[in-house]
């Protein structure tokens, strides 16, 4: 020990900052470190290269170079290939695209669906972007969007009415998912606050609701929505099936959101509540300004997780006969012109879900980074 101090080339207090050792930097350094560091690692690297070589070229051939993009039916598709069935028949997806997007929405009214899509993008971008002029107006618009969309899609008040049974495909999937997501967040927050309330009656109601909804599979709730709910309603009254499904999906997601938010609320130190109280902030102001911004920030990964889950769970509505993108696609597989094209269909649907879920996931990461303000207290 005393050796090091006597051998040191620098007097105490004069040691300069030295650059780090070099070996670990550069492309070759990276390859050396990560791919070839040991015999086992070399073997795994070679195995990976062989797997890629075996899988990638045929996949690319099937997906792109050998695929047929324009044809009237599957026979024409296969006729256009060097070897029949050696490539994807994307003509099937192209030919059914309008059906997949709009369902059975009447053709002359489809501009309303398009407008709803465009306004949806606008509401998302306007509501989520931080530095946008007129942020307040955008937020009001985003909050009003579900009602504007309902009016545009279903009509009435000057627009041609369209029955909910005409909704299908991606349109129906988005209607179910966006409704579930946008209404379950405020409801879930309210339930989480209720569960932590000092009022025993309110707390009991929230606990019972959350535990009941979480204790029952979504499919069961959907069956209740499609069949049993009519028994509880006054005889003769009709209550739209889609409406019932939307309510069930929202309630189901809100129970999960409530628990995620409750976790976030418990992650805050009691000092935050005390500081807000000591400054004279009322319960609502303290929650709005101090508690929820922090609790929701902590809960972002869980909230987005729940959102993605309920987005994909929206496909369960096909079990009660609603034709969302999955239900409609499967029905389309029975079309004699396009028999046996299941891989194309499922790849298309998977891609559709993956893109939207991946976007949500990236956005949440981005949001977490943006809200990072140093150490939590």
């Amino acid at each position, binding site marked *: 020990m005393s050796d090091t101090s006597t051998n040191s080339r620098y007097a105490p207090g004069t040691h300069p900052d030295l650059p780090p050792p070099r070996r670990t930097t550069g492309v070759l350094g990276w390859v050396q470190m990560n791919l070839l560091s040991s015999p086992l690692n070399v073997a795994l690297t070679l195995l990976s290269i062989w797997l890629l070589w075996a899988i990638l070229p045929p996949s690319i051939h099937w997906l792109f170079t050998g695929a047929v993009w324009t044809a009237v039916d599957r026979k024409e598709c296969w006729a256009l290939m060097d070897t029949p069935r050696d490539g994807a028949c994307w003509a099937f997806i192209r030919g059914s695209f309008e059906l997949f997007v709009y369902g059975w929405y009447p053709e002359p009214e489809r501009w309303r669906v398009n407008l709803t899509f465009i306004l949806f993008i606008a509401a998302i971008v306007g509501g989520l972007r931080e530095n946008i002029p007129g942020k307040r107006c955008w937020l009001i618009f985003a909050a009003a969007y579900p009602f504007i969309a309902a009016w545009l899609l279903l009509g009435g008040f000057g627009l041609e009415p369209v029955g909910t049974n005409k909704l299908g495909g991606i349109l129906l999937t988005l209607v179910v998912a966006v409704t579930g997501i946008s209404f379950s967040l405020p409801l879930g927050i309210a339930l989480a606050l209720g569960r932590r309330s000092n009022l025993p009656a309110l707390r009991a109601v929230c606990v019972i609701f959350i535990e009941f909804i979480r204790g029952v599979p979504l499919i069961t709730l959907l069956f209740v929505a499609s069949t049993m709910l009519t028994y509880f309603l006054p005889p003769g009254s009709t209550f739209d099936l889609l409406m019932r499904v939307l309510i069930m999906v929202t309630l189901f997601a809100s129970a999960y959101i409530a628990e995620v938010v409750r976790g976030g609320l418990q992650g805050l*130190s009691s*000092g*935050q509540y*005390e*500081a*807000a*109280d*000591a*400054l*004279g*902030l*009322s319960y609502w*102001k303290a929650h709005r*300004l*101090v508690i929820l*911004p*922090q609790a929701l*920030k902590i809960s972002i990964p869980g909230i987005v997780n729940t959102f993605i889950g309920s987005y994909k769970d929206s496909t369960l509505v096909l079990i009660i006969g609603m034709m969302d993108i999955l239900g409609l696609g499967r029905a389309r597989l029975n079309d004699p012109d396009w028999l046996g094209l299941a891989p194309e269909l499922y790849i298309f649907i998977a891609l559709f879900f993956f893109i939207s879920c991946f976007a949500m996931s990236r956005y949440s990461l981005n949001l977490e980074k943006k*809200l990072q*303000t*140093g*150490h*939590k*207290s």
Partner: protein
Amino acid sequence: MNQETTATRTGSRLNESDPKIISIKGMHKWFGDFHVLKDINLEVAKSERIVICGPSGSGKSTLIRCINRLEEHQQGSIIVDDTELTQDLKNIEIIRSEVGMVFQQFNLFPHLSVLDNVTLAPIWVRKLPRAEAEEQAMQYLERVKIPEQAAKYPGQLSGGQQQRVAIARSLCMNPRIMLFDEPTSALDPEMIKEVLDVMIELAESGMTMLVVTHEMGFATAVADRVIFMDEGEIIEEKPPKEFFESPEHDRTKLFLSQILHH
């Protein structure tokens, strides 16, 4: 008796006829079965500086937390500036807006910048316009000597700086009374002085202060009265000089010997 000695020590600054700004009578508090505060009687005059000390678990923090209702007392009365603390939320709101509190763990709001921390309550409770609140906030940040940190977030500041922001945040509500709950206990030694300096300056400006602390130097320099608590009771209260030089009770002597000669 105590008030007499207080008055003699500080000359004309305080005397017996001073209005009482806090008046606690026969106050008891329990945590479940645990009797944490026993028959507390305490009168605080306007502009009086009181240091409360005692071993951990003696109830000193709980006592000052009762004064702004962070804890609820179960018996007796607490009257703050002519408003009695009861279940009435209105009274609690009035008292909280007149009583500032500084915590051991600072409890700044980490998601808000320093300036937003300091302006939050003036804007949302006092309904000040933002520009006015910010102007006032900058004055107080200057008073605690960190105006240059206004745009930063609490997580980017040192403990001492955070505690000074916390003091500025309380002062922005123009409180008539300030409660300090071990304000320097979570600080590194070299940062204690910067916080105590701000507190001394505040005391000299005539603020009524109740400070739970073990900083005996601060007590000697600033306090009008030192209160010693043990096991939920006020054991002894005296001006600091007498308190340190001639403590009456054995428990006080034991406590002083432990904190002064360790």
